[in-house]
């Protein structure tokens, strides 16, 4: 059993209530943090080696250190709770089960940044979680953890929750800021970065739920202790959202560095593949990261065991590696059609493109159309090459990373499963009627 820093109290009855949360050590980190200086907290988080848990993996402490303190403008902390990356459901779970952990993290982090107004931007579909957070925030105000002169320290903070309206793009930090300002979620051109000019053109830090919820643990144990967990530049624990064709889908908190094979097959985690089938492929970090076939997800190209860490998963670059991303771990068994799965992902990116940049707006539409054609038995070998060219013309050519995120699944699917695409276009009749997913009857038998 690895260390549990985020999920330790998930089983506690009533942990959503402030009193119960406090009985289990809650808000002790806040009291400890308020005795430090903001810079000491930033240093602590830097020492911990915590990297952004939303997907990009940028060191959180460094991100904090960029915030403009010289201009004297108001500074904001915004929590990105717009969790929408397919395969990822950890933040929803965390906020629903233990809202005060996020709130405590928000207060400490806001204090470290010198923010007096902070927001939790939560995706609109999660309005039921919004109401849970609202209730918890009201309790925190009542207890003197929010508002004026927090715990008599003279520090003031207003914290509000803000729901979105349903748009994947608002998980991108500048689109999120636009949306929070009451506009369409069109990403901004960077620079200027939000740390200089973000919400209402003031210095802003945007952090993922899990990153912020980790801060109380870092304060409690100290950055140096935290950095002892994990491997290499992958420090600490990470929530993995495991889903797809596994026996035990769910949220698992792992110490970074756990072997992928153990994660998939051990009964402590995913419990292996359903129905005793063989593993075909894994998308390890949310739908945007490259898909890897079984042999490359279990071992690197050099033949070393692949580990659940930023470095090991990206070993081999995009030729034979992938990314840890958001930790959305999608497992596919031998019955899965990679072509149909890719159509599904591509349709998603087309639907979610904000339409601002031509390569993404037009390119995602064309990729979906071509895959639709292939799926209906009208594809040709040239279509496979066309898809390859198309994705190359999107990757790196857009304002925000949605373009890249749409291109990578296409590139990796063709790179690793080209023969399946070729077989599909040459012998469509073989693939058209294949039941690639469990139908309901079959599912019942396996359960």
């Amino acid at each position, binding site marked *: 059993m690895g260390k549990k820093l985020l999920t330790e109290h998930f089983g506690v009855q009533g942990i959503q209530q402030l009193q119960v949360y406090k009985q289990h050590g809650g808000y002790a980190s806040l009291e400890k943090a308020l005795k430090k200086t903001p810079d000491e907290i930033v240093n602590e988080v830097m020492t911990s080696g915590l990297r952004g848990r939303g997907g990009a993996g940028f060191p959180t402490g460094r991100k904090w250190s960029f915030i403009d303190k010289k201009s004297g403008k108001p500074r904001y902390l915004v929590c990105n709770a717009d969790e929408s990356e397919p*395969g990822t459901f950890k933040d929803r779970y965390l906020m629903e089960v233990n809202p005060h952990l996020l709130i405590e993290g928000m207060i400490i982090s806001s204090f470290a940044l010198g923010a007096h107004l902070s927001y939790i931007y939560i995706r609109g579909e999660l309005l*039921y979680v919004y109401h849970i957070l609202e209730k918890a925030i009201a309790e925190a105000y009542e207890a003197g953890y929010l508002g004026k002169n927090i715990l008599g320290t003279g520090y003031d903070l207003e914290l509000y929750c803000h729901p979105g309206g349903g*748009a994947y793009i608002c998980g991108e930090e500048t689109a999120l800021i636009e949306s929070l*300002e*009451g506009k369409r979620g069109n990403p901004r051109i960077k620079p200027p970065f939000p740390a200089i000019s973000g919400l209402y053109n003031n210095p802003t830090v945007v952090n993922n739920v899990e990153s912020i919820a980790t801060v109380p643990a870092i304060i409690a144990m100290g950055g140096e202790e935290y950095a002892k967990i994990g491997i290499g530049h992958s420090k600490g624990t990470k929530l993995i959202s495991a889903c797809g064709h596994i026996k035990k*889908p769910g949220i698992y908190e792992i110490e970074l560095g756990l072997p992928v094979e153990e994660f998939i097959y051990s009964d402590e985690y995913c419990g292996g593949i359903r129905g005793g089938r063989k593993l075909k492929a894994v998308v390890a970090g949310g739908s945007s990261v490259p898909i890897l076939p079984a042999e490359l997800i279990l071992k690197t190209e050099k033949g070393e065991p692949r580990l659940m860490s930023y470095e090991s998963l990206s070993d081999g670059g995009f030729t034979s590696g992938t990314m840890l991303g958001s930790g959305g771990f999608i497992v596919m068994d031998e019955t899965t059609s990679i072509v149909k*799965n890719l159509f599904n992902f591509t349709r998603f990116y087309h639907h979610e493109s*904000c339409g601002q940049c031509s390569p993404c707006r037009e390119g995602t539409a064309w990729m979906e159309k071509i895959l639709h054609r292939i799926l209906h038995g009208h594809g040709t070998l040239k279509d496979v090459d066309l898809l390859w060219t198309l994705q190359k013309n999107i990757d790196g050519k857009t304002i925000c990373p949605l373009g890249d995120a749409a291109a990578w699944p296409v590139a990796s699917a063709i790179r690793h499963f080209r023969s399946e695409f070729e077989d599909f276009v040459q012998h469509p009749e073989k693939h058209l009627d294949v039941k690639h*997913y469990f139908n*309901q009857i079959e599912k019942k038998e396996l359960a």
Partner: protein
Amino acid sequence: MENKQHIEFSADALALAKKLMGRYPEGKHKSAIIPILHIAQSEFGGWLSPQGMDYVAKIMDLQPIEVYEVASFYSMFNLQPVGKCVIEVCRTGPCWLMGAEDIVNHIESKLNIKVGETTSDGMFTLKTVECLAACGGAPMMQVAEKYHEDLTFAKVDTILNDYQNNTKTPISHWSKDKIKP
């Protein structure tokens, strides 16, 4: 399906809207537009008519176009009339792997409508949506604020019968009992 809407917030909704506008710095109350549109959708029978959006513009002191352009960008806002219960089935990646297409087909044949349509009694509208962050409970669907996970045909039948028997007035993402100042 109610085409004629009563275009005015209840006293509670109006007070809540005012409270939400106060959560942003002075002059930045436009920020509250999305939360207030959710409340409007709940108040106005599950969808936003041009008149409903104009009303939001009026109480927020914004130009109507500022409201239209936001409402039309986000997928949760229905700009056409809908049934009392909107069924939103997740169709993305992990849910698809676990049989979301089967679930959609099952609902279509059970309710005798296609995706995007409303039943003739005005009870259900069927939509497919992109990933709702519940992949561990795939396949899943959302009805109003509630997530229904680990769906099977039998479970879907029970859920839909339940809504059929117990829904008297339209339900929405922002549930009516949470519209309090």
